[in-house]
C-alpha cells in the first residue's frame, strides 16, 4: 500500500467526525469535505461531490457510505475499514453507555416526565425531516403516484417494506426508461 502513513490520520479524522457530528449523515458532509480536501488534501472537491452523489444512491447510511468511500480512495481497503470504524466507534460507545444508564434512571418520575416531553418534541423533528425529504423529491405525476402507493401500502397493509422498496425501484426504472424512449422518438 503506497499511502500507509495516511492510515492513522484517516482513522483519527473519521473518529473526530463521528464524535462531533450530531444529527447524522448530511450534517457530516461539510465536515468530511473540510477535513479531507482542505486540512489533509487527500482528495479534491470534485471527488467529494462524486462520493456524496454515490453515497446517496447506494444502500445504507450516507455517513457510512461516505466514510467507506473516502477511506477507499485515500488508502485502499484498509483505509475504508479504518475510516468506517472511526465514524462508527464514538456513536457505538456513547449509545451503549447511554443504554446502560437509561435502565437505571427510567424509574425516576422526573425522567419519565422528561421523556413524555421529548416524545412530543421528536414528533416535530420527524415531521420536519419528512418535509425536507418531500422538498428534495422529484415533483411530477409518476413520483406522486409512487409516493402515494408506497404510503398507502405501508399504512394499510402488512406487506413487507422490502417488497414495497423493490416494487418502487422497478416502477421508477420502467417509467424512466419509457420517458427516455418517448423523448428519443420525439426527436
Amino acid at each position, binding site marked *: 500500500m503506497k499511502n500507509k502513513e495516511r492510515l492513522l490520520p484517516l482513522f483519527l479524522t473519521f473518529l473526530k467526525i463521528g464524535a462531533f457530528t450530531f444529527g447524522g449523515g448530511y450534517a*457530516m458532509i461539510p465536515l468530511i469535505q473540510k477535513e479531507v480536501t482542505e486540512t489533509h488534501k487527500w482528495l479534491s472537491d470534485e471527488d467529494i461531490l462524486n462520493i456524496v452523489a454515490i453515497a446517496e444512491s447506494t*444502500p445504507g447510511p*450516507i455517513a*457510512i457510505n461516505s466514510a467507506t468511500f473516502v477511506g477507499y480512495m485515500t488508502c485502499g481497503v484498509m483505509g475504508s475499514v479504518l475510516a468506517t470504524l472511526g465514524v462508527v466507534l464514538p456513536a457505538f460507545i456513547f449509545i451503549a453507555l447511554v443504554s446502560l444508564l437509561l435502565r437505571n434512571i427510567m424509574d425516576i418520575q422526573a425522567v419519565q416526565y422528561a421523556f413524555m416531553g421529548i416524545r412530543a*418534541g421528536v414528533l416535530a423533528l*420527524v415531521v420536519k425531516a419528512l*418535509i425536507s*425529504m418531500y422538498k428534495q423529491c422529484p415533483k411530477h405525476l409518476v413520483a406522486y403516484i409512487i409516493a402515494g402507493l408506497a404510503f398507502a401500502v405501508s*399504512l394499510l397493509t402488512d406487506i413487507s417494506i422490502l417488497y414495497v422498496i423493490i416494487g418502487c425501484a422497478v416502477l421508477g426504472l420502467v*417509467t424512466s426508461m419509457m420517458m427516455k424512449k418517448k423523448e428519443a422518438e420525439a426527436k
Partner: protein
Amino acid sequence: MTEVSLLTLFFTFFKIGLFTFGGGYAMLPFIQQEVMLNNWIDEASFVNFVGISESSPGPFAINIATFIGMEKGGWLGAALSTLGVVLPSFIVILIVAQFYLKFKESRIVSGVMSGLKPAAVGLIASAVITMVIEVLFPAGFSLGQFAGAQIYVSLAIFALGLFLLLKMKKHPIFIICISAVLGIGAGYLFGL
C-alpha cells in the same frame, strides 16, 4: 418483550442496511415493521430513543442499531447489530468504487433512484403518522384517567417544536432540551 437471538439481530439489521436508501429517517418505517411489530421494544421506548439519538453523536442508523442490539443482546448484541447495519454499505461501496464514474452516469441507477426517492417519502409519511398516533394516544383512542391532560401537553410541545424548527430554525438538540424541560414542568404541574 420478545427474546431475540444474536443471529436474528445481525440479519435484521443487515437487511435494514441493505434496503435503506438515503439514510437516517429512511430507516424509520423499516424499524417500525421489523422491531415494533415483532415486539422487540415498545413504541414509546423507540420514540424516546429517537430523541436520545438526535442529541447523540453519530449517524442515526448506528445509534439505533447499537441501542436495540444492547437492549436485546448486551454488548455482543450491540456489536452484531451495528456490524449488520454497516456491512451492506461497506461491501456495496467497495464494489461501486471500482467503476464509480460509470455508476454515476448510469441510466439504470438514475431510473431506480427516481422510484426510490418518492417511495422513501411515502414510507416515511406512513411511519410518521403511525408514530404521531401512538405517541399522542398511547392507550388507543379511549381516554384513560389522565390521558386527557397528557394529550394537550404533548400537542402543545409538538406545535411549539414545529414552530421552533421551521420558523426559528432552531437546532434539534435545542428542541429536545426544551421538550424535556416542558415535560418535567407539565408533569409535576398537572400531576400526570
